[in-house]
């Protein structure tokens, strides 16, 4: 096993709000090796996006970040702005959730592609242009040459996300962070975009973090999955192990909440009742306890640590883990 490309060590993010400090990310440890895919799953507000912004060092100015983010031997948290700028876009790339807002509306697609290439690679304008055309072709954009002179509003949503992916891939990054890359897209386009990401990842041997609220997205595509809840990683396992035998009741509930084609029409969706806890008022016990059907006395008194199960690499934070595999409809 080689040294990991990315190690997130004890990362916590706090945001000051009028109602007190909001703990968006609560002491998270994760690691990712080159060429591998990590899926981060959780519902809205669980801190998955804040965690990705912490890795990219794109947190809001007021946010307080502690811990270390080791990327390729350097701690991104303590890196000076100029060195960080050289890493971003070249070794560390990102695809945001909404391609409608992540491309600049007043700059042509060509400009937005070529500026990244010319910033990081020693290419003149014609060479950067040629590379841009190749990239657009690689992400499946027809007539890429004409596209360069167009503006984002002249392309469909799926097309724009392909362009955003082309920008992210433009300098052969070592790590690509895809933050809900398909959430804003039509269902029919989602699979295409995910397949495109997976294909380019294999071809370029880059590491990838897919952030999503949909366990289905990571099921076939991630090597490892981390489930987040209320700012913490509550279960982490190799993907196959997780779907075979999940231990954390939250993971189970998240999986049950995915609509299934074989379910009869008008069956109520087993949604997770209640709301995530108020992040400005942390609970003493397990954050999921108020919504958990297995919760017992101890769950409300102390926080369960993330610890190993019988399977290597499978960690979970629960006092009453689910043991019966047959209860899980994976």
């Amino acid at each position: 096993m080689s040294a990991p490309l990315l190690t997130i060590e004890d990362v916590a993010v706090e945001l000051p709000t009028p109602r007190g400090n909001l703990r968006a990310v609560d002491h998270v440890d994760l690691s990712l090796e080159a060429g591998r895919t990590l899926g981060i799953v959780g519902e809205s507000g669980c801190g998955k996006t804040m965690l990705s912004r912490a890795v990219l060092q794109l947190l809001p100015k007021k946010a307080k970040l502690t811990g270390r983010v080791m990327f390729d031997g350097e701690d991104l948290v303590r890196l000076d702005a100029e060195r960080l700028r050289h890493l971003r876009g070249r070794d560390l790339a990102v695809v945001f959730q909404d391609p409608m807002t992540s491309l600049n509306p007043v700059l042509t697609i060509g400009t937005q592609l070529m500026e990244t290439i010319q910033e990081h690679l020693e290419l003149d304008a014609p060479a950067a242009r040629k590379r841009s055309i190749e990239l657009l072709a690689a992400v499946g954009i027809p007539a890429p040459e004409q596209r360069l002179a167009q503006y984002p509003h002249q392309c469909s949503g799926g097309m724009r996300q392909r362009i955003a992916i082309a920008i992210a891939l433009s300098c052969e990054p070592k790590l690509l962070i895809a933050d809900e890359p398909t959430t804003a897209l039509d269902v029919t386009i989602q699979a295409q975009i995910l397949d495109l990401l997976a294909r380019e990842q294999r071809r370029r041997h880059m590491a990838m973090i897919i952030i999503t609220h949909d366990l289905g997205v990571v099921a076939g595509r991630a090597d490892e999955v981390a489930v987040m809840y209320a700012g913490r990683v509550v279960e982490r396992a190799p993907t196959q192990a997780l779907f075979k035998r999940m231990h954390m009741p939250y993971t189970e509930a998240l999986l049950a909440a995915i609509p299934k084609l074989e379910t009869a029409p008008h069956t109520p969706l087993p949604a997770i009742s209640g709301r995530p806890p108020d992040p400005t008022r942390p609970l003493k016990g397990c954050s999921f306890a108020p919504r958990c059907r297995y919760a017992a006395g101890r769950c409300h008194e102390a926080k369960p640590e993330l610890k190993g199960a019988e399977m290597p690499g499978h960690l979970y934070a629960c006092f009453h883990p689910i043991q019966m595999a047959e209860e899980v409809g994976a």
Partner: protein
Amino acid sequence: MLTFVVRRLLAILPVLLAVSLLTFLIASLLPGDLAYVILGDQATPENVAALRHDMGLDQPLWWRYLSWLGHVLQGDLGRSFRTGQTVLQAVAERFPVSLQLMLMAEFIGLLIGVPVAIACAARAGGAFDRFMTGSAFAMLSMPSFLVAILLIYLFAVELRWLPATGYVPFTEAPLGNLRFFVLPALTLALAEWPGIMRVLRSDMIATLQEDYIALAKAKGLKPARILFVHALKPSSLTLVTVTGINIGRLLGGTLIVESIFALPGIGRLLVGAIYTRDLVILQGVVLLVACGFVIVNFIVDMLYAVLDPRIRHGHA
């Protein structure tokens, strides 16, 4: 793009017509008979009646409007009954002065306002931002005659760097001409930059929250490129509007500043016309100024399309 231009051009026709009607009504409905003004208080009723007939003042209002409009469309805005000068001559004489004043004031205003706005937005809430926002507010609350007097006191009386009043045409003495314009232009600019700064600052702050700015940072672009290429252009629509309105306003000259600094511009022409009840000049100048305003705003609309491709392609 061509249909966009034609559509906007057609839209300003009714505006121009309304402008002409309002201008005409302002001049015609002012109390006091023009014939008495011209003939003085010694006039006999017969003389007055004869002059009213000659000038068409005995005709109904709508007829007078249509015949005036007919003349205007042929380029004849009338002639001052005091100086014998046509409106076009009088305006042609004064307009370059007001135009130069406007251009210099707007240029200085933008020169101060835009960089300050960008610097404030880049570190919103910081010490520089708070200081500049406060200064802008103080500047906005100072009337221009006060600023003018303070500037005259400082630069003309105490330091003796610049003349307080006067004017020479640029063609006769370029440098001397500029020296005369510095203080009046600065007076206007000190009132202009706070508005420029405030709209651009708040638009920039909003733009800097956008996803595409986060992506620009994630792409590792230089901070200057993010500010000037990615953020400034989409933030400048309101700035263009404000600048257009300012230019339109200043095109009509500035009564107070031109009077204080004794610049022979449109503003002083208007003041003179009002004092002497020279209604033909008044009516003609107001019409021309209003048309200028409409045209400037048309140009502003065109600039939107240049700045934002979505407007150009009819998406917005």
